[in-house]
């Protein structure tokens, strides 16, 4: 794990509690990500991973606890260009066609805000599209893309702002192998360039070598915070879930095998 170059962590969540509907979804989550770290957030479906990530960026109100980004309390945080967010992919696209470039360009708004984009902004958008290997399709409609390609568009959109921290919710879910490789190499480049990453994963898979630390959630509580669980890489693959004999006795794995 690289030594943090500044004292304050990039993401610091303390004792976070949150309810959705009437249901407690986070029940006191501590989550810290230091500069240059790549942290995986693991856990079964419904364990609260998306909720945790969405409360880090202020999209789910906490009922208790605190969140700081770059040492600033979330409420006062304004430098959104430093944060690149990749939401859990939904099938719902906008009701009007949009090209890859148009969608990726909207990621640059955290820098341009209400002013017109300049040459540097356009170049950053082109670079982001290039990074995910979609330059030749930049003028195609996002509605005509496969799941994996769509995911790459969402990552390019986050990268367009040239953020310091990437927060990604299940970037590998439903992604074909070719796209998985492109995503992994994109991420590798970002990490090599000093980016900080928090990513929600269902399984470590192809990204395992990049991960510095893993946090495992279960029912809204942190079950594990430390080196990525070894066995997970091989056994949490789809198809292995239901045949694993030790699942019940090993909490860390159990959390992943749903």
């Amino acid at each position, binding site marked *: 794990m690289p030594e943090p170059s500044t004292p304050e962590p990039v993401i610091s969540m303390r004792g976070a509690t949150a309810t959705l509907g009437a249901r407690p979804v986070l029940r006191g989550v501590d989550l810290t990500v230091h500069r240059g770290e790549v942290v995986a957030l693991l856990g079964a479906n419904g364990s609260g991973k998306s909720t945790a990530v969405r409360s880090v960026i202020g999209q789910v109100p906490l009922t208790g606890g605190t969140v700081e980004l770059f040492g600033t309390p979330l409420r006062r945080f304004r430098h959104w*260009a430093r944060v690149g967010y990749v939401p859990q992919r939904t099938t719902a696209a906008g009701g009007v066609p949009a090209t890859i470039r148009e969608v990726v360009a909207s990621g640059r708004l955290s820098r341009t805000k209400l002013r017109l984009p300049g040459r540097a902004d356009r170049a950053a958008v082109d670079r982001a599209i290039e990074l995910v290997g979609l330059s030749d399709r930049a003028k195609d409609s996002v*509605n005509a893309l496969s799941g994996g390609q769509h995911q790459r568009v969402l990552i390019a959109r986050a990268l367009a702002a040239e953020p310091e921290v990437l927060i990604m919710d299940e970037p590998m879910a439903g992604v*074909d192998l070719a796209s998985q490789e492109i995503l992994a190499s994109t991420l590798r480049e970002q990490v090599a360039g000093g980016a900080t990453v928090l990513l929600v994963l269902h399984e470590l898979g192809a990204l395992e070598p990049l991960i510095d630390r893993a946090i495992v959630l279960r029912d809204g509580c942190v079950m594990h915070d430390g080196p990525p669980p070894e066995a997970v890489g091989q056994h949490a693959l789809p198809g292995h879930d239901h045949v694993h004999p030790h699942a019940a006795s090993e909490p860390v794995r159990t959390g992943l095998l749903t």
Partner: protein
Amino acid sequence: MLEFLNPPFMQRALLAAVLVGITAPAIGIYLVQRRQALMGDGIGHVAMTGVGLGFLLSTNPVWMATLVAVAGSVVMELIRWYGRTRGDIALAMLFYGGMAGGVMLINLSDTGSNANLTSFLFGSLSTVSEEDVTAILVLAAFVVLVTVGLRRQLFAVSQDEEFARVTGLPVRALNLLVAVTAAVTVTVAMRVVGLLLVSALMVVPVAAAQQISKSFKVTFVLAVVIGTAVTLAGTVTSYYQDVPPGATIVLLAIAAFIVLTALATPLARRRARDRGSEADRCTLEVPAARPAPDDVSV
């Protein structure tokens, strides 16, 4: 030839028609993108109360309708924020209350008559006054300024609201601006197409344009072109045939939609074939046996 340009009322009606043709699809595209295609219809209902107030207080109904429609759109936006569960019921109250209130007020006023009511509900050419034209010009300028000047921001907010919030954009203010702009557009369009058909002109040209376009930009431009073409054609037809302009315009827009949809199918097929000729053919090195992901597209 061009005899329809001679009467002053037709000059005013045509000017109003062009402005409607531009503004209605220009704001409508964001409503369609947010899947709120019927919002314009709701605002149209609410604006009716404004028209009624205008008659009752003997002021210009366009300005009164603008005021009430803007207030109604703000309330609709607030309901969207806070009233998750009972939201649709609250909206229904607002829409039908607005419509009923308008009909009632017009009947109470001295100047209002059923003929007046009909002209506001379905549009009318001969009733566009000098004063209306001024109001429509000012309001249309506002709509164009917002929908073109803030297109990047409004696109982002309408495409993915949560992501837009994480870019730090003032999402609530922008949503409110869309609602208010839609309300203003309703009153711009009210004179020519009428309050009951306003929403069609916000939605149908956009739906028609997106049949053959791949980008937001092209959809926007094409929708405005279609909108302007059908409002002009409808206005002229209405002059010669003595049919209501609103209905004519909307039917023409739907015809445009049908024609473009019919054109789109062979177009999409040809595109798929052009792309497929390289990507589809099997080569020995291809490791995966499943089809290329591009083919799954709808």
